[in-house]
Structure formats: C-alpha cells, structure tokens
C-alpha cells in the first residue's frame, strides 16, 4: 500500500467511526480490520483492491460492534468468530436494527457532517439526498442541479472529508 492508501484508510476509518458505538475509536476499528486480514480470517477476493477490502472488513466489524453493544454482554470473541463467516456487503447498506443509542449517534453525527458544509448549501442538499437514498438524477431534479454542478459538489464533499479525516482532532 502507498502512503496515500494508508491515509485513505485513516480517512475511511474515521468516517466509519462516526457510526460506531461510543466506546470504540477509529483506530480500534482499523486495527481490528488489519488484524482480521493479517491473521487470514478475512481473505481478499480476487479483483477487490486492498483498500476497498479493508473498508469492507471495517464495515462488517462495525455491525458486530453494534450487535455486541445491543446484547450488552461480553461475547466479543464469539462475535468476532462469527465475523469470519461473513462476506463484504455491497449495495444497499445493512439495515440497522432500531436502537435508541445508534439513532442518537446517527443524528448527532449527521449534524457534525452538516456543520462541515455549513457554507456550502449544495453540498448539504446532496448529503441530504444521499441520506435519503436518492439517485443522481432524482437529486439533480429535486435540487435544481446540473450534472456538472452535482459532480463538482461531490468533489468538494470528498475533499472536505479527506481534510477532516486527516486533521487531528477530526472536526
């Protein structure tokens, strides 16, 4: 992996950590994913770039952390063992079980993400549309954006997230 890949993973881990149970940090998530990859319990499918693979492992681990938090037990080893039999989810995200704590964190972190774009109404519109699961076409129609505007706004969003993810502490 290149230095850029490692920074990309840091940004991805920090992004994913926004949706983590409160007692788990982004580096916990990333180090756990590295551990699962390095010990061979998660195998990289052919054709999947390593960074995308590790990102998928982090996503899976996050769901198990939440499951563990819901159970409120000390079953970590069992849960991590279960992880070995799961694949990387693609497409529509796993629909989280209703959880007051997870809901509260989601609302709080949505506010934090929107604050990153407080001076960029187009970015906020697109973030809302992504939250709602709208397509690019639906978003452009609803928000009155051209495809060019949409693409350039997504680029601004991406750069802002990279910046936020590389800063210490993260905004």
């Amino acid at each position: 992996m290149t230095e850029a890949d490692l920074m990309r993973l840091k940004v991805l881990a920090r992004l994913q950590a926004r949706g983590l149970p409160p007692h788990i940090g982004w580096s916990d998530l990333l180090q756990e994913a590295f551990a699962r990859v390095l010990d061979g319990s998660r195998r990289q499918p052919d054709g999947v770039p390593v960074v995308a693979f590790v990102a998928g492992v982090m996503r899976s681990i996050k769901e198990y952390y939440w499951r563990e938090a819901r159970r409120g037990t000390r079953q970590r080893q069992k849960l991590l063992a279960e992880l070995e039999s799961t694949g990387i989810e693609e497409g529509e995200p796993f629909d989280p079980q209703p959880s007051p704590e997870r809901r509260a964190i989601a609302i709080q972190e949505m506010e934090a993400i929107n604050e990153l774009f407080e001076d960029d109404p187009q970015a906020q519109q697109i973030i809302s549309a992504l939250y709602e699961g709208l397509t690019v076409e639906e978003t452009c129609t609803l928000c009155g954006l051209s495809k060019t505007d949409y693409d350039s706004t997504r680029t601004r969003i991406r750069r802002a997230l990279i910046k936020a993810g590389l800063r210490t502490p993260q905004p």
Partner: protein
Amino acid sequence: MNRTRPELGFERLLRSLERDLLEATDAEILTVANELGIKPGMKGSIALIGVISTARPKDARQKSARQTNKVGGSSRSRGRPKGDEPAT
C-alpha cells in the same frame, strides 16, 4: 424528506461517502495532506498515527473519555498503548 430512519439514512450516507473516498486519487489525497502541512513520508508523521502505529490517536481517546463519562463508564478491556503524538 424526513421519513428515513436516522440510523439507516446515516449508514446510506456513510456508504456513499466511502465510495467517494475509495475513488479519490492518490494525488488528491496527497494534495489535501500538503494543504494541511502533513508530510506522510516523514518518520513519525502525524498523518499515519493510528494507522501504522499502535498509539491511540488523541481524538479517539478524547471521544472515548467523553462518551465513557456520558454513559457512566465502560468495562471494555482493550490494550491501549500510550504515547500519542501531540495534536497539530
């Protein structure tokens, strides 16, 4: 536009943003790092603290401390090496 359950909407958003980050070029990431004055090639650079080192980043530690205080303490046991780099 507010019928979506927050936890599902938020996961959708994270998934979309994750894809964006996976598509970012190395040059784009290095450019942003450079704008922040971060030099990933330097030994001990803050850019990779928490990624290739086992030191727990300051912001993660702060988040845990804050949240732990909120919920009245967590008994989760994980080894957490000390020695974080100072924040920029």
